[in-house]
């Protein structure tokens, strides 16, 4: 059995699950069981891949499980999958998000469709992370829009239609630039090599081009990924989409789909156009820092919990962008780690917010007060997630933010210095919201709410466990990320930049 079968299974299992969920739609609750079972299989597969991953397969650099089949020569279309230390943890995160979104964000309205869309979304997201071909990546990247759109539009809050449309159009318009950039790059490579049209990542990453071309292509790619991440100032779709989406949708959007943006920036924009970095680095670092400060500032003033997480995500994505663009190995490792950690942390946030919303029927901050009296377990769980997000030593967020800031100080001290303010600001808005929601005296409906049920506690166990384990012992993860980042850095800047 070829090792690439694992990756094919990662793609196909959710598809099969979606089909099965559609077939059993007549019996109530059956599709949910199918969905959870599929998610469990997917999780096992992802963990298996993470354990089996080998970072020095012969002749494949740090890529493992690789295979390539050309599907159409005139189109340059290929099925080309591979996994390295960077995409590995995105795959694990995708599987984890599916499982927890289903377990913690169950939505009984038209359940078969909801489960089906979530499974399809997972398959497409997996495809994006596994693609080792730029056109294939783009196809999966675009495909993720369709299920996300239907999830927001079908199960969202009062303004769901507006939110879904805004989400789709922003991302679609952003990826228009990416699409043209990809086609241009493909033909550039074809004209250079005089061979067949190909979009293979390994072939395109050695395309020779002028500095100007590299800058333009980098910009085209970066626009799409900046919308997706989101990076300030292209973030304006995200607060309404996060807030209006159902719990499962918010988790998918912020924990995984946003990572498609930063992953794309790292893998494709940086990886394919190293020449452009000297020009683009100061610009993107500045945007990242603005995003950190702006996100933190608005998070202080925002009226509801989901928007708060949306703006805090904007700040966190700023840190990730900072790490990707800083040009230091340590910062880049930190960025990849933060992509995973931020995913886990936002799962925690949105699950707890979802549970509270079920009880109180609102996510407005001023409607809630003193919840730690009637719901001490929620308060405790929220505290852990919050402290991880603030970056308390011993919890996962600290390790990644520390690596990013250390690396950035080495190469771009000024930006690193300003970004540090963002760490403080995170403490301000999160502790303040904790004060307003959980402390004080609960009255009226707030005094009546029930504490976390045992099922809700169990759903949050993996989140808390990951936050603590990766805070104390991140070595196994770092060991897998570092060789791939090392290789990318080596490709981008053959000499130096090894701080």
């Amino acid at each position, binding site marked *: 059995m070829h090792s690439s079968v694992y990756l094919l299974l990662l793609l196909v299992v959710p598809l099969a699950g979606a089909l099965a969920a559609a077939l059993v739609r007549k019996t109530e609750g059956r599709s949910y069981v199918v969905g959870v079972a599929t998610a469990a299989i997917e999780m096992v597969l992802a963990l298996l891949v993470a354990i089996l991953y080998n970072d020095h397969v012969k002749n494949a650099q740090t890529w493992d499980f690789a295979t390539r089949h050309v599907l159409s020569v005139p189109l340059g279309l290929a099925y080309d999958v591979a996994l390295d230390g960077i995409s590995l943890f995105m795959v694990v995160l995708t599987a984890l998000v599916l499982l927890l979104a289903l377990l913690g964000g169950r939505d009984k309205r038209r359940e078969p469709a909801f489960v089906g869309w979530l499974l399809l979304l997972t398959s497409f997201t997996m495809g994006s992370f596994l693609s080792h071909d730029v056109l294939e990546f783009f196809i999966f990247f675009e495909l993720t829009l369709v299920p996300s759109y*239907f999830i927001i539009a079908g199960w969202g809050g009062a303004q769901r239609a507006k939110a879904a449309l805004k989400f789709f159009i922003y991302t679609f318009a952003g990826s*228009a630039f990416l699409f043209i950039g990809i086609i241009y790059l493909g033909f550039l490579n074809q004209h250079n090599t005089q061979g067949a049209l190909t979009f293979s990542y390994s072939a395109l990453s050695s395309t020779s081009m002028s500095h100007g071309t590299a800058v333009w292509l980098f910009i085209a790619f970066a626009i799409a990924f900046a919308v997706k991440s989101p990076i300030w100032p292209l973030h304006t779709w995200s607060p309404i989409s996060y807030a209006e989406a159902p719990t499962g949708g918010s988790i998918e959007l912020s924990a995984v789909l946003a990572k498609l943006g930063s992953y794309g920036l790292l893998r494709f924009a940086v990886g394919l156009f190293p020449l452009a970095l000297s020009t683009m680095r100061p610009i993107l670092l500045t945007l990242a820092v603005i995003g950190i400060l702006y996100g933190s500032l608005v998070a202080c003033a925002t009226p509801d919990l989901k928007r708060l997480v949306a703006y805090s995500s904007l700040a966190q994505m700023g840190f990730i962008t900072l790490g990707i663009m800083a040009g230091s190995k340590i910062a880049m490792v930190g960025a990849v780690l933060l992509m995973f950690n931020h995913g886990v942390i936002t799962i925690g946030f949105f699950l707890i917010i979802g549970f509270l919303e079920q009880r109180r029927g609102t996510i407005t901050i001023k409607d809630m007060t003193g919840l730690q009296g009637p719901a001490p377990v929620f308060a405790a769980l929220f505290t852990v997630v919050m402290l991880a997000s603030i970056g308390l030593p011993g919890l996962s967020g600290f390790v990644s933010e520390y690596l990013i800031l250390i690396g950035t100080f080495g190469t771009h001290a000024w930006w690193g210095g300003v970004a540090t303010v963002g760490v403080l600001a995170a403490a301000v808005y999160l502790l303040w919201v904790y004060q307003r929601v959980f402390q004080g005296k609960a009255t009226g409906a707030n005094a009546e709410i029930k504490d976390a049920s045992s099922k809700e506690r169990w759903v949050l166990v993996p989140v808390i466990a990951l936050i603590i384990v990766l805070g104390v012992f991140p070595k196994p993860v770092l060991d897998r990320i570092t060789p791939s980042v090392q290789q990318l850095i080596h490709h981008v800047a053959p000499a130096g930049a090894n701080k």
Partner: protein
Amino acid sequence: MTSTILIPSIHYLAILPVLIFFGASLGLLLMSALVKDKVTINWATGITVVASIATLVVAYFQWRCVANTGPSTTVAHAVVLDGFAVVGTAVIAASVLLSALVGHDWAKRERIAGADFHILALASSAGALLMVQANDLIVIFLGLEILSIGLYVLVGFDRHRDSSAEASLKYFLLGGFASAIFIYGAALVYGATGSTNLSSIAYFLGSNEVLRPGLLYAGGALLLIGFAFKIAAVPFHLWSPDVYEGAPTPVTGVMASIVKVGAFGALLRVLISALGTQLDTWRPILFVLVVLTCVVGASVALVQRNVKRLLAYSSINQAGFMLLGVWSGSARGVASTLFYLMTYAPVVIATFAIVTLVGGTGDELHSIDHYKGLARRQPWLGGSLAILLLSQLGAPLTVGFYAKYTVLAATVDSGGGALALIAILSAAIAAVFYLRWVLTLYADDDLEGTRVVVPLFTGKVIAVGAIVTVLFGIWPGPLVTWAQHATLLFLP
């Protein structure tokens, strides 16, 4: 001196499709004249279906002939038999087949007896067939007129609605102008080059210095205007929303598919084959045309509440994309436009089939509100429409994505990165109204609405459209390769 008329040698296989369609049309006409009241709609549909299938079979033999012996001309070089013409023929025949079935159910619902609809549709399609294999400006003009005259009547076919007659008159007047402009352009080109034959024009322009370039440019521009009118390119599109809205819905489907195939086939031949040497002259004009067509089509559609007007603007936007392949002026470009046409035709016919059904008896329920919750009440029908709309939007896993991809690739390959970007951004604007429609389909506030009756044939046509969309959306290789081969056999 005795003068004799020289009959040119005729390769009958090449003109067999036109003969079949004309024959079927005339046969039906004679039958309904002779055996009055006895030629039922069933007979008419049956004969149309048989004629279409026969043409598809002929196209298969034509393809083998071209593959073995290469492209050739016949009837004094006025008609071409090449890969491009064969694929065009096959697409038109398949479109007629699908449209005839939709028209059949529609005629039954509207209690239209007789074979008139099918006679006119067959005659019009014969014109389209002639256009895709014409190698002479006069033959193109003939095809254009045959195509148009049948359509003028078809548009006004619904005698119960004033808007139908109004649309017919509008289409006739503006179409007449466009034809006049076209033939005037042909005359000027003849004046400049000494021939109306496309190959001769190309040869002349390739080997001579043009003495009066102004004459040639004016002629070329007038030809382009004639085509732009037929494909509804902005700013020659003003007729199309009114005519799409007024015409009986199955006829609108014919206009959006068969007319486009015929007109684009001839346009490609004129610009690429005959005026290929003048690429640098017509490209800037086409650039402006593409930008306007894409952007205006997508933007104006945003404010439409009537789905037929909406689809009119949507098809203007799609025509902009097809023009991209023409703009690129390369073999890749021709192949991409051909691929776009091949995939757009079944999608748009199936879309209008659904619009026909929702329109109800009298063909008047065309507000977008009538689609509220359709996919909730009838998941298959509504789901198919959602897939068809997503394909027109260009979402991956539908064939529309690859259609857009191929034309954009051809454009970028020919150095039109900026143009490609404008076009794809217009698709992002267009996404708004497609998605709004999809969202309406899945709205859950009107679950008690009336069920739409889906007759047998129309149901099959919709299924074919949806299957084509998804099947070739997953597996586009064969169709793309076919389009590419067809273009390799394109007569230079």
